[in-house]
């Protein structure tokens, strides 16, 4: 509350805690935490405890659940996790690179057709995902590429949002005078981009990377349409198929619950770590942050 004490004309009344906003925020935080807290507790229960003890009472079966999950079909769970990390990591990296070049071109050059290209790419956001996924699947299967790592990876690279964000970033953070000065010094356009613009746009590029990482990691529809071989499944589709089988055999419930917990840990951890040096506000294109 330090900034407040600096405000001119602060009275004792103004310094008091505003209870209504505080309460509303705490209730909101609790609502958001309930399922996560539940899954943390439920993952500690063994099969009998899950259905018998009070839901928020921890059990003693976490390590058993963990080894059951690891043993399930020779550790396919960890394979799904690794697949997700691969799809999301590589996909987001390529996406940030492609968005960097495309957004920079749209934000820092004026050329014929610029607005048309920009609007066309943005309109891509409006196309329902399944409208793309089904023909993508049919076309890729003609090329013999359906049900492959590429089938999941390639359609995930282009991010209209990424291009949009980098455009804003490039226009705001790479000064035209600097580019002009570099040109005078004989730097090529590629060199200006790679040595000057990319470092300056880095917060924006990290944002695109994170956004796309989360987007790919969380994607369910694309792998559901593209993939048939469960060795290539990402974690979302893997857990879904596990539950679909488990619906008839509640013995698999504990595996699904433990799997859910382990699947959300990496992303939550990622956000908790990065929020120290990366602001959430960057996500909505705030350049000031």
């Amino acid at each position, binding site marked *: *509350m330090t900034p407040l004490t600096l405000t001119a004309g602060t009275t004792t009344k103004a310094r008091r805690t505003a209870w209504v906003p505080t309460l509303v*925020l*705490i209730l909101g935080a609790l*609502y958001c935490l309930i399922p996560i807290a539940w899954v943390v507790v439920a993952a500690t229960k063994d099969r009998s405890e899950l259905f018998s003890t009070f839901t928020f009472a921890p059990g003693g079966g976490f390590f058993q659940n963990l080894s059951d999950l690891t043993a399930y079909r020779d550790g396919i769970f960890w394979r799904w996790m690794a697949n997700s990390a691969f799809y999301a990591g590589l996909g987001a990296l390529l996406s940030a690179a492609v968005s960097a070049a495309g957004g920079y*071109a749209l934000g820092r050059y004026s050329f014929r057709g610029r607005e048309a290209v920009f609007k066309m790419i943005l309109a891509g956001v409006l196309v329902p995902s*399944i*409208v793309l996924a089904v023909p993508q699947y049919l*076309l890729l299967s003609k090329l013999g590429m359906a049900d492959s790592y590429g089938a999941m990876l390639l359609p995930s690279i282009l991010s209209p949002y990424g291009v949009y964000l980098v455009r804003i970033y490039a226009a705001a953070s790479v000064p035209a005078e600097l580019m002009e000065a570099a040109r005078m010094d004989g730097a090529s356009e590629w060199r200006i981009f790679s040595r000057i613009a990319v470092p300056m746009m880095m917060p924006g590029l990290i944002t695109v990377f994170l956004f796309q990482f989360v987007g790919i990691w969380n994607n369910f529809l694309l792998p559901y349409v593209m993939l048939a071989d469960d060795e290539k499944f990402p974690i979302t589709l893997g857990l*879904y198929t596990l*539950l679909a089988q488990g619906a008839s055999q509640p013995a698999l419930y504990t595996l699904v619950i433990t799997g859910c917990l382990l699947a959300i840990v990496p992303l939550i951890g990622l956000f908790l770590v990065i929020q120290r040096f990366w602001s959430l506000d960057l996500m909505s294109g705030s350049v000031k942050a």
Partner: protein
Amino acid sequence: MTSAPLKGSVLTEAGPLADGTGTAQSVRPSRPRRRGRSAPYWFLVPTLTLFAAFTVVPIGYAIWLSLHKVRVKGIGLGKGAREQVWNGLGNYTDVLKDSEFGHSILRAFGYGLIVIPTMLGLALLFALMLDTPKARSAPFARLMIFLPYAVPGIIAALMWGFLYLPDVSPFYYLLDKFGLPQPDLFDGGNLYLSFANIAVWGGTGFNMIVIYTALRAIPPDIYEAARIDGATDLGIALKIKIPIVMPSLVLTFFFSVIATLQVFTEPMALKPLTNGLPSSWSPLMAIYDKAFLQSDIYGASATAVVLALATFVLSFTLLRISDRYTREDRA
């Protein structure tokens, strides 16, 4: 010069100049401008290639498929027994007559009527509360409310699905303790609430951040001025903050409508836990069902094109309305 895919192309433009160095520039000062002229196109090559391959071509193919059908020759066995023939708008008239698809659209609208006002209302409320200087625990709450964004939709739906199951749910435990009636959350109208809750849970945080960012961009002196005029916190929120963040609200509304039409994950995730959820519950599920379970890619493509057109029409209508609104606002 590094070895990137763009290098070669840009180099051919820049190459002679690099050799000519200063002299070339002093002789023809207009050169640097001309040199950069093709650069933006090269930078756009990866974006446009991907856009063509994974957006334009698939849409074109879907449209082509939607105008065709399969004709089976003879008894339909052997190679060449099935051929694609022109079907004109036949698939489209089928789509418009298809009551399953119509119902799925209505369900999506019903679901959207619950999700969108609740989610955006909560997002706005939390953003305003975060922006109240005297609120405690704001950074903590902001992070917690945003956290569901990091949880994959399908996993959020699985977690809530378990919380809806009477055998394992703490809610049912409490209802039982207090002797209250125990609703079936997978039944009829409750199903909409169950799905909507998952979407609200997952989407509120992101929208909150968008609105909150807009709120923080407001210069604080406006509030000072309003306070001097005797405005209360509530008055400031209603009369200053909400009108200023209106463009953000319109934007989040716009994207929420599009997302609603595409609801897929929540009903898919809860399907194994329920009986009697139709496999064409939402428009996307109906298209998937048609394409892969009924193996009718032609009809599915026509349905998908109709959905895309509906999305476009809806989007442009919304943009038109919001444009008019903001313009009047400015005047």
